[in-house]
């Protein structure tokens, strides 16, 4: 039952991402809801469940991107593992620590995608690169408590 709810949450968050209203964009940026969910799963479920649904979340995101490389699938699985390892090293019980973890993961994820895009020969002004890197990550981090609450309720 829980697994089904997690799957449903991925579908709902992906739908929200695809239909995100333009007036909720912050400097033309939208938050990465699936990334927050992937991190939240590591905090509120066991590692195996978090990894499987993390891969599924990454795959769902890749399906709707115009690229042929499943970069999010690969990155999300790596982040799941690294956040899990981090959770064993430091205490991640406080909400602000979890928000900071989301911020770092979002920054790294956006940095990898941005570098991959630039390395592919695409022109991107530095301002837009930094906008996508910083504002998207901060926006994602600020919205994370909402997804954390939802994930906690499902996982409970």
């Amino acid at each position, binding site marked *: 039952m829980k697994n089904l709810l997690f799957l449903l949450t991925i579908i709902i968050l992906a739908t929200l991402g695809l239909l995100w209203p333009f007036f909720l964009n912050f400097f033309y940026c939208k938050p990465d809801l699936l990334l927050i969910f992937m991190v939240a799963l590591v905090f509120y479920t066991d590692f195996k469940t978090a990894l499987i649904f993390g*891969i599924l979340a990454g795959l769902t995101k890749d399906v*709707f991107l115009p690229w042929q490389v499943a970069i999010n699938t690969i990155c999300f699985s790596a982040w799941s593992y690294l956040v899990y390892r981090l959770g064993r090293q430091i205490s991640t019980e406080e909400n602000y620590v979890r928000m900071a973890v989301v911020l770092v993961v979002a920054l790294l994820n956006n940095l990898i995608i941005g570098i991959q895009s630039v390395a592919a020969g695409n022109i991107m002004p530095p301002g837009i690169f930094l906008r996508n890197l910083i504002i998207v990550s901060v926006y994602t981090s600020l919205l994370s408590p909402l997804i954390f609450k939802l994930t906690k309720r499902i996982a409970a």
Partner: protein
Amino acid sequence: MFKLPRKTLINFILVSCVVLLVSNFLSCFKNPTQKVFKPHLSIIGLVKREILGVIFYHHNMLQSQGLQSDVDSLRWRLFNLREVTQENVRLKNLLNFKQKSPLRLVAARVIGRSIDSWSSSVVIDKGRYDGIKPGMAVISPKGLVGSIAESMDNTSKVLLINDPNQGIFCIVQRSRQEGLVSGTLGSNLIMRYLPDGAQIIAGDIIITSELSQIYPKGLLLGQVVNIGREFSGLNRYALVKPIVDLSSIEEVLVIIL
């Protein structure tokens, strides 16, 4: 030395294999996943549009009044243009020109937008079953919108002109100066490879070139807003403002070749 237990190592290799396998066969997942998303995306999209229509009623009313006056003036211009077109047809027939076959268009509705901020694309509700194939040009009544990046059975992904992966061979309508227009993810496009003495000024209209393999010649793309020199100092570039408001497109037309 760095030691890993055998079980962890095997688990790590297994998971890596699964992830690589999944990422290799990404295209296999695209069609079924988009099929699952299509019905509720269409319904929620409609509901969202109606709700936004109510919220922004006053803005829409003012816009409607402005558009009505535009329609009146355009109607008059259209009447004049019909006369010119008829004259053109008569003259072409007289000169025995080969008549080009008219473009076949498929109308589609936008049901989803880009899921992240690193690409600029939309999902439309028409796919392979409607004859849409990758590489086809997508337009709106105002001008060029983008091209089909992928087509599934019932949906397609459109790469918008402001995506950095786009490269459109264009010309300046006034001086016929050629250049390559690509997206920057920002509100403007960039026209590159302009020589030092390029005949281009702010306000020039940019249209697609006949050298473009995907786009038919003469599609309106945008207007030059600024001109600068590239970092290398060898060429110049022009910033082009797209004619179509890419953030609010709802319906598009796909050119079936």
